[in-house]
């Protein structure tokens, strides 16, 4: 399966670059994306964040009712980024301080999750937000990869950077916003943005779409496949008189 991805906006973070590109390789385990480009040379650091298309999420709070722990308090989040990846050329704290990360909204803990509609719950939204972030992190949908960007010096006064990461196999189709921040002495000195348009989904996502769009047909196929496999196994066992 091949994903067709186009870099719509040029990577114009940097002065005098014509090295701008995105490279895609997709497979069963996900879609590999390579970002590379050029920066003005010198002691500079790069932070890149990738924000995937929005998806609705539901959180549930278990509460005690008559001695039973039951999932009752649900909260519905609209337009949570389905994917987030923060990549940097050095450990974040060596690049800049917490204050400017806050200001720029960089990192999982600063990612806006949208407003949640929380029912039945007395607990504040902050608690739900925090749990949503950590669940997404555990699922590998929210990532932070420090020191994942490789810097090299290119010809003349140009520095080259390269980074690669994999989109999970269930990644949504749509626009992935890539934001590049150039830091010098702890200050963000330049910013650029580009869009990766994931046009075709991975196999897992295709199965999901099929199960949702053609639910009846999917059910019939599920039954036939299961029956067929059961039949074949019984054939094999009776053929070789294993029972």
């Amino acid at each position, binding site marked *: 399966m091949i994903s067709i991805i186009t870099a719509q906006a040029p990577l114009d973070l940097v002065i005098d670059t014509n090295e701008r590109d995105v490279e895609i390789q997709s497979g069963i*385990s996900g879609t590999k994306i390579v970002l590379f480009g050029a920066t003005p040379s010198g002691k500079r650091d790069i932070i890149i964040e990738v924000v995937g298309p929005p*998806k*609705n*999420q*539901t*959180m*549930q*709070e*278990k*509460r*005690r009712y008559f*001695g*039973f*722990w*039951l*999932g*009752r308090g*649900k909260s519905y989040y609209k337009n949570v980024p389905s994917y987030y990846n923060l990549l940097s050329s050095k450990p974040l704290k060596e690049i800049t301080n917490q204050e400017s990360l806050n200001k720029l909204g960089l990192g999982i803990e600063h990612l806006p999750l949208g407003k949640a509609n929380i029912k039945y719950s007395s*607990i504040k939204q902050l*608690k*739900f937000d925090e*749990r*949503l972030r950590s*669940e*997404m992190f555990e*699922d*590998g949908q929210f990532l932070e990869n420090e020191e994942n960007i490789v810097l090299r010096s290119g010809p003349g006064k140009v520095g080259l950077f390269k980074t690669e990461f994999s989109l*999970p*196999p*269930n990644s949504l189709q749509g626009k992935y916003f890539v934001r590049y921040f150039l830091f010098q002495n702890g200050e963000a000195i330049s910013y650029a943005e580009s869009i990766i348009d994931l046009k075709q989904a991975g*196999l*897992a*996502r295709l*199965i*999901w779409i099929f*199960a*949702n769009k053609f*639910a*009846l047909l*999917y*059910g*019939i*196929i*599920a*039954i036939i*496949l*299961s*029956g*067929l*496999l*059961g*039949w074949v*196994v*019984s054939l094999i*066992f*009776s053929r070789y008189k*294993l*029972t």
Partner: protein
Amino acid sequence: MELYLPIAEITINPSIFLILGMSVGILSGMFGVGGGFLMTPLLVLLGIPPAVAVASEANHIVGSSLSGTIGHLKRKAVDIKLGNLLLTGGIIGSFVGIGVFNSLIKIGLVDLLITLTYFLFLTSVGSFMLYESLDSLGYLKKKKRRKNYHHSWIMGLPFRMRFKKSGLYISIIPPLLVGFIVGILASIMGVGGGFIMIPAMIYIIRMPTSVVIGTSLYQIIFVTAIVTLLHAFHNQTVDIILALILLLGGAVGAQIGVKLSSKLEGPYLRMALGVLVLSVGIVMASDLLIKPEETITLIRGGGSH
């Protein structure tokens, strides 16, 4: 190796699920049950969302029960006529069960329903089997045997029919009712219902043990197929990849289990199954009573997002 389940929306290690399928398959081959009553709670323990576990397990049982039925058909141990009667009840029951399931999904009580149904049925069936096997082994005080006490009212029911294979001339009401109840359970619990069907066929319908397992499996194929279809259509919770991995392990395990079963005596076999059923029920209940590590969780799996 890792594998991403498209509907359950989690990444799993497929070898764990192959081994799980195989172990439950061995038990199912030994006891003549589908094994769903064990598999569904274990899937939930391994992190599969309950609604997906239920639907995918039904999908898995379609294949495993078909495989088993073929074996029993060769030994002419299936009463198709009686099976069809159970099936008729089962189809009606599964539609009712799905209706209940859907409305509970909407108000977020589906996990409670699944757990409570499991607890009630596993503990009662488990205790009954344990009691019965101890009784027949002579461990319990001999009570005055009431002669055919559950036969009397069943014999009196109307609409009687002859079932040659089972050598029975009985009313069609008990098989329809048993099928109906199992159909409801199948859709709520994602099980074939063998662990309820088999005792009911032996103790209520009084079928000869030789045709019980084959006939039960025969009707389970169709009930679980309908349940799979209904879940796929209404809830989009059938994970085809998960079902096929379990089936691959389970089909092999079942054949091993059949071999092992011939080495164990009937009452001991029933006692072992009784203990197993009872302990799964207790584990499920403790899940409801013990405070979870994290009270706020993300709902994964299923359709519509």
